């Protein structure tokens, strides 16, 4: 079902983790649909992404696309990072099954959401960047059950 590259990134995800006091954090997706991605960016004064970490709740493709997206933006400046589209992520993974294309869109959105957070914190505008659509924190209160 998945390409070797997807399986590789699923089995050995790159850049997993958190960044304390990150320059920007973005969480996108929805637990209801089964995918949530969170991306942490560490951006220096030259607007270069020095470090990036992620955590993902989701299927194999969701994990692999977020892992690949972090690889693609690492070391880039924020304008270059804007060029990391879902297509770029998919191509870098040698493709995804059609039902999993939305995972790559989510990866792109997660990067954008983290950049948005960074832009807001620093009072700057990034060309072409729009406010992220979905954010998990909106429906966080729903889920309080304990098992």
């Amino acid at each position, binding site marked *: 079902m998945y390409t070797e590259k997807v399986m590789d990134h699923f089995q050995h995800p790159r850049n997993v983790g958190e960044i304390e006091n990150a320059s920007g954090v973005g969480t996108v997706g929805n637990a209801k649909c089964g995918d949530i991605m969170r991306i942490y960016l560490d951006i220096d004064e030259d607007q270069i992404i020095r470090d990036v970490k992620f955590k993902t709740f989701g299927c*194999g493709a969701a994990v692999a696309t977020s892992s690949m997206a972090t690889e693609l933006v690492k070391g880039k400046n924020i304008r270059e990072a804007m060029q990391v589209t879902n297509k770029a992520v998919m191509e870098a993974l040698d493709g995804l099954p059609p039902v999993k294309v939305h995972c790559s869109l989510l990866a792109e959105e997660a990067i954008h959401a983290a950049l948005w957070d960074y832009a807001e914190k620093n009072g700057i505008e990034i060309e072409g960047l729009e406010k992220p659509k979905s954010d998990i924190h909106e429906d966080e209160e729903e889920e309080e059950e304990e098992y």
Partner: protein
Amino acid sequence: MEKLIYLDNAATTKTSPEVVSAMLPFFTEHYGNPSSVYGFAAANKEVITRQREIIADVLGAKSNEIYFTAGGTEADNWALIATAEAYAAKGKHIITSKIEHHAILHTCEYLEKRGYEVTYLDVDENGLIDPAAVEAAIRPDTILITIMYANNEIGTIEPIAEIGRIAREHSVLFHTDAVQAFAHVPINVDECCIDMLSASGHKLNGPKGIGFLYIRKGVKIRSFIHGGAQERKRRAGTENVPGIAGLGKAVELAAASMKERMDYETKLRDHMIGRIENEIPHCRLNGDRTKRLPNNLNFSFRFIEGESMLIKLDLKGICASSGSACTSGSLDPSHVLLAIGLPHEIAHGSLRISLSEETTMEEADYVVDTLKEIVKEIRDISPLYEDFVKKEAKSSKR
């Protein structure tokens, strides 16, 4: 571990070698069409009759009440659509549950589009249907109650005898989809007042592409597949003789070993349930603890998604299944898990393990050990788990 550990026996089972041996002569030696006159072919008619008797015996039915089909799905379609057509003059109301297999649910939707009304009963948190709710749903125009014997995902065994009695008292036909239960647990059609019952060969170590519908004498449903006069003019098409021979053998073997198998699988199942509940935090057993198929385990693990669990298990040689959206081919997780009240995010993290008599205790322990590691690995990269841990830390500081 190199060996494949197959724990998806609710999806399909290995065709047992004895079954294959029973089928083989009907491909190259006794390949005649049972409807032909000459002795060479007509002998196959006897073979079919014999298999019908074997199956009828196991159900406490008569052999002329067993009709071979191409599987459980056809049997379900036949029972529902033909009943709807035959009894339309009496009414157009059908009662079923929210946790049926899609072979039932999608057939009900088909009938709804054609002017029938369907009541989909709720289930409780363990997936049990309340017989009182069945009774309350019966109307003067109710023509059929169809409730599965045991659920394919969570293994819950429904109160079929009670529901059957209610149906009988109200003179409503009662069909049960017993695809997961037949030859796994004892079923008697008279004791349970079952009028129709669907079953499938490949869930009981028989071949794929063969099943049957039991139709109680007196139930006036007509043919669903039109053509020749096979199956007492009720199911056309040249008989699948190898399939029927295989199904008969599989039923014979399954019936002979049922008691032992139930005891063994129940022991294995409860051992695994106990270990998972003790050793993996934030999990939930789905389905009833005791009114449960002996070979079924279904767990939800919080903060993780099912497909990634399945891939990681596969990489360790373990075959299982999940009710997550990614494995259902839609955006929604399993309708069964939603019907028992699980929130979407917890339904996505479900895992179904279905054992067989060949599963060993060593394999069971290996699977639990592996699962423990996998759940931890996936939680370590889960933002939901991260949030949960931070929240816990905050509340313990308070």
